[in-house]
């Protein structure tokens, strides 16, 4: 007989606090008139900050609840920090933006926080079914948020593509989980680990096949090569705060879950999945970088670059040593500042009701808005992996993990990719600073919160590039299960 006591709720305290604020927004939303919808945003902000404080205070302790379905350890603490930080910046970006785009109905923040809760759960569970449920809640919330701009042509197309491919991939996921259940009679990763070590060759091979099917689901979420096709269209279609949020939060949670699956669940067949991930990582990196060379639209370019960065993180995972996993987490942490910064600059120059923002709109921005120009310069160099930025430190550790496990060729290919990527990142700087004939008035979207978001991004990129010490140690020591 399974009995639940109060102790079981300890690991999900952060989720509960966030849920509380979600419902708070729900009720408050009825009370406020249409004009003052911004209050929801502020409540959401406060909620995220409080959860952040709660997570930080709980950091370091490790509990398990609901007989090992949910676990709160350093790793999930770190992922929570990443998720909350992303949400914080995303909300900052969207406070004034949704008012301008007339999407000012309260549910926007509420769905955002719901997806956040789902991601927190997704990142801190060993149970496959709970993972599946978390993925699905998360995805559904994302479909809605993508389609939030009702009359937008591109956002509808993006939502449609995201929905079809999302559910298509998740059906593979559930098929894989079912096979695993059939094989071992359990869906808990800790037990599958023991069962898999003793299994005979037939069981191992079927386990690998089922792992591949699960990988399709996860691969879709982190935009790995064969399953990446949705990313550019959805990032271009969705409204900028959402594509910013979507480029990091779900990816961070799915990377965390993938690591739990690989390190714990699939530990006995590590040799197999390292080879498989080796191939996928290389393809993802090359695809992301090569296609990005030709992009004209900034958000679409950032979509392809996020594919490439997923490839770099896969290199960290393929290295299959604690340094690699820690590096992936740190890279995700660093990726917040770089990517959100770049997206917020994209939002900064976006015009009302004009979908998609061309790189050419940036022309001459380096001189009209010197600070934003400088921030964009920092983001671009960080994404390209040029030192004193967090991008470089992150990439350094990913590739050094690969070198540590003697995957020299992987490191070399990864490093070549970052060289290729330098071209299109620098192309943006060229358009900003070096191309003459600035467009007429480079219109800018003067929202104080947006400028705060850009500032956070810039400061974070440089600060953690120059002094990554504490966060890096936290990341490196978190993957210990």
């Amino acid at each position, binding site marked *: 007989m399974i009995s639940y006591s109060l102790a079981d709720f300890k690991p999900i305290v952060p989720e509960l606090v966030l849920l509380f604020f979600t419902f708070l927004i729900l009720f408050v939303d009825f009370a406020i008139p249409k004009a003052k919808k911004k209050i929801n945003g502020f409540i959401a902000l406060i909620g995220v900050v409080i959860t952040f404080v709660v997570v930080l205070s709980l950091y370091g302790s490790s509990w398990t609840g609901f007989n090992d379905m949910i676990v709160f350890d350093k790793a999930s603490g770190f992922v929570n920090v990443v998720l909350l930080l992303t949400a914080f910046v995303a909300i900052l970006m969207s406070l004034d933006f949704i008012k301008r785009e007339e999407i000012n109905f309260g549910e926007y923040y509420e769905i955002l926080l719901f997806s956040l809760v789902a991601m927190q759960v997704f990142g801190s569970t060993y149970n496959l079914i709970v993972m*599946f449920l978390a993925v699905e809640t998360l995805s*559904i919330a994302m479909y809605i948020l993508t389609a939030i701009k009702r009359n937008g042509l591109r956002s509808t*197309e993006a939502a*449609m593509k995201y*929905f079809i491919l999302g559910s298509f991939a998740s*059906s593979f996921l559930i098929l894989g989980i*079912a096979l695993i*259940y059939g094989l071992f009679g359990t869906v808990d990763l800790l037990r599958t680990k023991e069962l898999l070590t003793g299994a005979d060759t037939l069981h191992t091979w079927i386990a690998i096949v089922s792992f591949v099917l699960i990988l399709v689901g996860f691969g879709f979420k982190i935009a790995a090569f064969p399953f990446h096709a949705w990313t550019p269209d959805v990032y271009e279609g969705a409204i900028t705060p959402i594509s910013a949020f979507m480029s990091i939060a779900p990816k961070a949670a799915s990377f965390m879950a993938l690591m739990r699956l690989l390190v714990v669940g699939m530990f006995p067949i590590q040799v197999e999945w390292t080879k498989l991930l080796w191939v996928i990582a290389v393809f993802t990196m090359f695809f992301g970088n090569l296609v990005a060379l030709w992009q004209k639209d900034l958000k679409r370019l950032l979509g392809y670059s996020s594919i490439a960065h997923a490839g770099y993180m896969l290199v960290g995972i393929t290295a299959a040593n604690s340094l690699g996993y820690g590096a992936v987490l740190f890279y995700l942490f660093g990726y917040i500042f770089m990517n959100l910064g770049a997206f917020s600059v994209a939002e900064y120059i976006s015009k009302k009701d004009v979908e998609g923002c061309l790189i050419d709109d940036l022309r001459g921005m380096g001189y009209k808005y010197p600070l934003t120009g400088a921030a964009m310069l920092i983001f671009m160099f960080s994404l390209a992996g040029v030192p004193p930025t967090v991008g470089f430190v992150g990439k350094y550790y990913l590739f050094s993990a690969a070198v540590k496990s003697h995957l020299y060729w992987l490191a070399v290919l990864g490093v070549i990719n970052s060289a290729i990527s330098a071209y299109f990142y620098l192309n943006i700087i060229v358009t900003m600073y070096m191309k003459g004939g600035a467009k007429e008035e480079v219109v800018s979207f003067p929202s104080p919160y947006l400028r705060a978001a850009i500032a956070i991004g810039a400061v974070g990129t440089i600060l953690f590039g120059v002094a990554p010490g504490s966060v890096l140690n936290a990341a490196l020591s978190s993957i210990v299960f």
Partner: protein
Amino acid sequence: MQYYVPFLMVAFILFAVGAIGVLVRRNFFVVLMSLEIMINSAGLVFVILSYFSGTISGQVFFIFVAAVAASETAVGLAIAVLMYRVRHTVDVTEFSIMKR
């Protein structure tokens, strides 16, 4: 453990039918239906394996799967409405502005 392979084959065939449905058909609603088939076939695998392994947890998991499938379809229909309002068509291939 009785011989459960033929049952699994049914489930996989069903899964394949659903997958091909998504790949080939152009109407959004047909795609929705084939997605539903795929997820249910995955659920079916759960039920088969739980029956043959004697435990009932598989069937409980199927309930979760079914619930999730339902909510997804709901959202899918909402997107269908949006598609119609924007493009007055539900043909999937119409929506291909964003490419390359």
